[in-house]
């Protein structure tokens, strides 16, 4: 049962509190997911360690060609950040789709990743951006690709009773790079995605230099589709190539039958459409041709 609610002032203070309380204390940021799980008994903890007031975690910064998003930065801050819009349109768009305006004002992008929902919008975008998470423990810092933070459906590799993801980072976009995020949902707010897709492309001389395509929920977490990425590598930017890549994603995609959010068959059939549309947008974002 919850005994105390704390506001540490530094990251160190937060992680040492976790360490001192050996699994009885847990990190809270926005709390928009956690505060549903605790009353339902899905999660029990004695102490909530609120990191939302630690100054260094509240910032979006750029340093040495990397953009950093602190653990206390909310979805709306990301969605409305010019820096993010310019360098990672996919992430700004993804963050703008989460829940509702109120939820985006409280919930954080890093929390979206740590909560490990299979189709977490921000996480899908971060994987496409090739983002890395900085994990702080009393022993120091570790760096893990966001892509590797899923341990199973709804399970994160992060243990919020002993670890704190302090920030995520990804490279500043080059001129020839572009990203996009598309989402299929039953209504425009307060809805989980039936499918979401984020892509990042790098173009050169009318060709794809490389691309990253991430989609969900087609597996336990956001999923890269290497076969489709391979199709694009070095290929000319044409509708045919894009279509071929879009079809290739099906090799990896394994959406479930969901009584609430569409059958496997339906989702499988529309996934390439989303990938195609996302690639088209990303090409435009990278300064490539629109068609």
């Amino acid at each position, binding site marked *: *049962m*919850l*005994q*105390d*609610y704390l*506001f540490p002032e530094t990251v160190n203070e937060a992680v040492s509190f976790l360490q001192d309380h050996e699994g009885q204390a847990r990190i*809270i940021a926005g*709390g*928009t997911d956690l*505060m*549903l799980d*605790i009353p339902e008994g899905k999660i029990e903890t004695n102490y*909530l360690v*609120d990191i*939302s007031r630690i100054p260094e975690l509240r910032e979006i910064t750029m340093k040495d060609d990397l953009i950093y998003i602190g653990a206390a930065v909310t979805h*709306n801050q990301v969605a409305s950040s010019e820096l993010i819009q310019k360098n990672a349109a996919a992430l700004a768009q993804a963050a*703008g789709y989460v*829940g*509702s*305006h*109120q*939820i985006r*004002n*409280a919930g954080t992008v890093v929390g979206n990743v740590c909560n490990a929902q299979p189709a977490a919008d921000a996480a899908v975008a971060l994987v496409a951006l090739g983002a890395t998470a900085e994990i702080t423990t009393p022993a120091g810092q570790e760096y893990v690709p966001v892509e590797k933070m899923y341990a199973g459906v709804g399970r994160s590799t992060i243990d919020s009773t002993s670890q704190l993801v302090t920030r995520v980072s990804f490279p500043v976009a080059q001129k020839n790079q572009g990203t996009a995020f598309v989402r299929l949902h039953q209504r*425009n*707010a*307060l809805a989980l995605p039936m499918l979401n897709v984020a892509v990042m492309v790098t173009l050169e001389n009318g060709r794809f230099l490389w691309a990253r395509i991430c989609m969900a929920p087609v597996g336990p977490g956001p999923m890269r589709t290497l076969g489709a990425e391979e199709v694009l590598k070095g290929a000319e930017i044409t509708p045919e190539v894009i279509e071929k890549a879009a079809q290739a994603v099906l090799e990896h995609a394994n959406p479930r039958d969901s009584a609430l959010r569409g059958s496997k068959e339906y989702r499988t059939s529309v996934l390439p459409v989303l990938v195609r549309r996302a690639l088209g947008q990303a090409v435009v974002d990278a300064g490539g041709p629109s068609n």
Partner: protein
Amino acid sequence: MSLKILKFTLNGDPIEIAISPDEMLIDVLRDKLELTGTKKGCGKGECGACTVIMNGEAVNSCLVPAMKASCAVVETIEGVGSTDEFHPVQETFMDMGAIQCGFCTPGMIMSAKALLDRNTDPTSKEIKKSLAGNICRCTGYVKIKKAVQAAAEKMREKQ
């Protein structure tokens, strides 16, 4: 469970109240402080009836641990306008048919106010996005959106 002292600013007044750390802001407001203007439509962040403004941002008070309000500035519907001078959003809601049963209204007004506090010239898309977390089952939102637009205009005129 030991009680904690929660201090915050509520509608301009300093508040100091003993709560248990697992209480949610909505319950402290409604049950302890008897400010029942903030409504509970779902208790799960899915309807916006409980919307309050915390440090300038609209949030679902049913998802906010009350402790998160410590040292914060919180505004509820009770702190918006007065019968001497209603807030422009209240005025336009009242006069343009944006209120039917009234159960969504306080939350809706808080969301609209939070938007207009920062931007008195929102696009219709911004209005939609800002209000999409507030379910209204009565009005079809048509008159609500118009009322927010009209309130924005009033506020621009005043500036």
